[in-house]
């Protein structure tokens, strides 16, 4: 018997270039088999050795979070109305601070599919009207008391009822009651079926509080950090909660505040005073990219800018004219020129690729003067069209100007009336026949469409009503089966794409700046700082 043993080669034994090649391959999705081939080329013939190398490399790439360090992050708005009461949250700073101190029943990942957090399992009854959440055991609040169903029921009930102060009340207005249904179980009783409820509960306002909390200056949560300091409009500081039930809370301290002025914020970021900066303006992107140790953290989202044409009055009541305008929109130019590539092409319907229910089967509409000419002729429209525009978001005015330019080429006179953004939502929006709009992303396609496209919605900005659409919208709330669900959502998106007065050139990304050693921020598309999910998993590489 020979005591010859093949030399065990590990990932660490490779030289720098080999390591680099391997990591690049794995990053591109190379499988164990591919790595085996690569190793063969390097002279490593033992399958076991290659497998070991593969595992080592994969670990090195995934980079296990390191503990320790202090992180300073700044977004734009903060002020005396900063609050620790989740139902009153209004800003990214509030949302992110909430993530630091509190937990939710579920957590949303980059795909917006709800994952268990404080609820370890959840299921809906067959009629879609009762949602049951099994709570995780052994979760404690920062004061040492344990979290239970009473806390959850109390927290969730704050969002219900006509006198509720909750900013998110309308997202759950179909819930009639929350009740304790077991020693570690709660149930939500719904008026009408809604399969989106868990996704919605993963958003900012539904953080779990301790029952009967009244003094929100000294509140406790179940989050990975406990409150060390909270001064509204000054700063918040969190330190790790030693009894946190899950993975996360890696830093020694997180400090968070707002710097309203974009130039000052950029200065602070480039100078190293802060390591994470929210809302990098498109002008500042090249500056951040060229700075040493500074990176752009860009997350494609469903947020968008659009021109809303009212379908209940001239000129938008003529669908051919609206189609002509849709074909005149130079989407590429909006995305490349104004958003500096930090966005995606819009397809005249609100449900962009960031939504789980996005329909990719609808062909992308592009600038097409010929088709525009055809529809314009068919519409029989003559005379000028006026679009009211204000700087409500990056690109909101430019989209109208681009449209004006292309329209002129085919002999259509589009006039852009620029007004101030102060008071715009009250004075112009939902009133002018054509005006520019900016929308944030909502957690689900159904929420977004119920808010601004349902025939009787308060914010149905194009004043279009399609019975088929409304019917699908309500029915789809009860459908979980992927096949039929996809069909329904595609049908709805197609109706908006073809019939509504929504001229939508671009979805914009959330663009933040981060220092190169800041890791572990998930790309959740709902807001800045990875959908405000940053605090849980963020860590600092040395």
């Amino acid at each position, binding site marked *: 018997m020979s005591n010859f043993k093949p030399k065990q080669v590990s990932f660490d034994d490779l030289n720098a270039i080999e390591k680099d090649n391997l990591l690049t391959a794995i990053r591109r999705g190379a499988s164990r088999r591919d790595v085996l081939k690569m190793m063969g080329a390097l002279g490593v013939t033992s399958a076991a050795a290659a497998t070991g190398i593969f595992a080592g490399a994969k670990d090195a790439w995934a980079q296990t979070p390191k503990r320790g360090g202090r992180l300073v992050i700044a977004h734009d708005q903060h002020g005396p*109305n900063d609050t620790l009461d989740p139902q009153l949250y209004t800003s990214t700073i509030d949302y992110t601070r909430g993530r630091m101190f509190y937990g939710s029943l579920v957590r949303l990942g980059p795909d917006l599919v709800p994952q268990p957090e404080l609820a370890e399992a959840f299921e809906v009854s067959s009629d879609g009207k009762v949602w049951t959440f099994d709570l995780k055991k052994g979760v404690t609040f920062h004061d040492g008391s344990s979290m239970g169903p009473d806390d959850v029921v109390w927290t969730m009930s704050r969002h219900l009822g006509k006198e509720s102060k909750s*900013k998110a009340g309308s997202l759950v207005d179909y819930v009639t009651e929350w009740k304790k249904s077991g020693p570690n179980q709660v149930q939500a009783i719904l008026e009408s079926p809604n399969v989106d409820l868990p996704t919605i509960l993963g958003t900012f306002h539904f953080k779990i509080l301790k029952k009967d909390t009244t003094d929100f200056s000294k509140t406790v949560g179940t989050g990975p950090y406990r409150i060390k300091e909270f*001064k509204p409009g000054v700063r918040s500081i969190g330190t790790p909660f030693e009894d946190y039930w899950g993975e996360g809370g890696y830093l020694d301290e997180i400090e968070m505040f707002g710097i309203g002025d974009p130039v000052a914020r950029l200065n602070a970021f480039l100078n*190293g005073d802060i390591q994470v900066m929210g809302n990098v303006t498109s002008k500042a992107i090249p500056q951040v990219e060229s700075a040493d140790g500074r990176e752009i953290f860009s997350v494609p989202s469903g947020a968008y800018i659009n021109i809303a044409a009212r379908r209940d009055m001239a000129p938008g009541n003529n669908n051919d004219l609206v189609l002509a305008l849709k074909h005149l929109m130079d989407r590429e130019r909006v995305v490349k020129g104004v958003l500096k590539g930090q966005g995606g092409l819009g397809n005249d319907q609100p449900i962009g690729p960031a939504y789980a229910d996005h329909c990719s089967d609808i062909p992308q509409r592009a600038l097409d003067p010929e088709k525009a000419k055809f529809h314009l002729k068919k519409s029989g429209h003559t005379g000028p069209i006026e679009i009211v525009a204000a700087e409500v978001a990056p690109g909101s005015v430019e989209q109208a100007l681009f449209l004006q330019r292309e329209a002129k080429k085919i002999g259509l006179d589009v006039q852009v009336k620029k007004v101030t953004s102060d008071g715009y939502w009250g004075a112009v929006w939902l009133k002018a026949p054509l005006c520019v709009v900016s929308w944030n992303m909502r957690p689900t396609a159904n929420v977004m469409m119920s808010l601004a496209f349902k025939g009787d919605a308060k914010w149905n900005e194009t004043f279009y009503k399609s019975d088929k659409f409304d019917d699908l919208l309500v029915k789809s709330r009860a459908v979980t089966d992927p096949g039929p669900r996809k069909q329904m959502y595609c049908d709805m998106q197609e109706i908006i794409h073809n019939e509504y007065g929504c001229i939508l050139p671009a979805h914009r990304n959330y663009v933040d700046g981060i220092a190169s050693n800041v890791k572990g921020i998930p790309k959740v598309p709902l807001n800045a700082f990875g959908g405000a999910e940053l605090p849980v998993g963020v860590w600092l590489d040395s």
Partner: protein
Amino acid sequence: MWSMILRRIGIGIVTMFAVSVIIFCGTRILPGDAAQIRLGQEATETNLAAFRKELGLDRPAHVQYFSWVKDTLSGDLGVSLASDVPVTDLIRDRYKNTLYVSAVTAVIGVPLSVLLGILAAMFPGGIYDRVVTFISVTLVSAPEFFLATLLVLIFAFYFNFTSAVVVGGVEGKTFLEILRHFFLPIMALCMIIAAQLIRMTRAAVLNVMSSPYVEMAILKGVPRKRIIMRHALFNAIGPIVNVIALNLAYLISGVVIIEVFFAYSGLATLMVQGVQTRDYNLIQVLGMLFCCVYIILMLIADIASIVSNPRLRHPR
């Protein structure tokens, strides 16, 4: 003299009451209220009414006014309408920043600029006067944010001496550390007030220099330095002190742009945020605080000019 000072104090108190009425009415004229702003798009008639009742905004205006005056006089400054935090907490978190910055700015900036102004007045038209005039006129005309940007560029990025914005608190820091902490805002504010003070000091001293008794002194052969230090300066104190008082009041209540640019929270920014959120209680308290500071500074300025001027000290 004492009766005069007492009268000034009396006028000051009457002014404060007048201002309190103006501030109260002013806040109520603003469109929308705290309840509406806090509820935002979720506002419905029912929850608005409930929220207004909770905040005490449903009471008639005069009832609100008198309960505010009563509470304030008994030392209760009320709770912020925008965040349910006591107003005193909000102010406590910020007043130190404002106090440190304005005090240090005043201690450095005021004597320095008065001195430079007097020196400029000593040799009007000379090269020194021209240089000082050129620099101060430039600084007066430069907008605050431009000056601030320039300072950041030089001290934060070029010399890497300090951070671009003020980060962190002042707790447990020594005087030198605080100086460094607020280096850029103090520097910017020194330049801003110096520009004005130098111009005013120079003008006030030169004004006195053209009066008959100074001509008399020149004719009798008193050296120029002595004329300025013994005769002109004392007579120029009145206007100079008034300008100093105005500048100090500005340092307490008007440095919004500097606070925003260097991202530290002070009282001026708090006032702006109060207006944005329609936080009546906060606006009222800060308004009265600023008014109080202003009246006290003006009182001191008046007393200083009375003391320095025999004609006012012994009125006929």
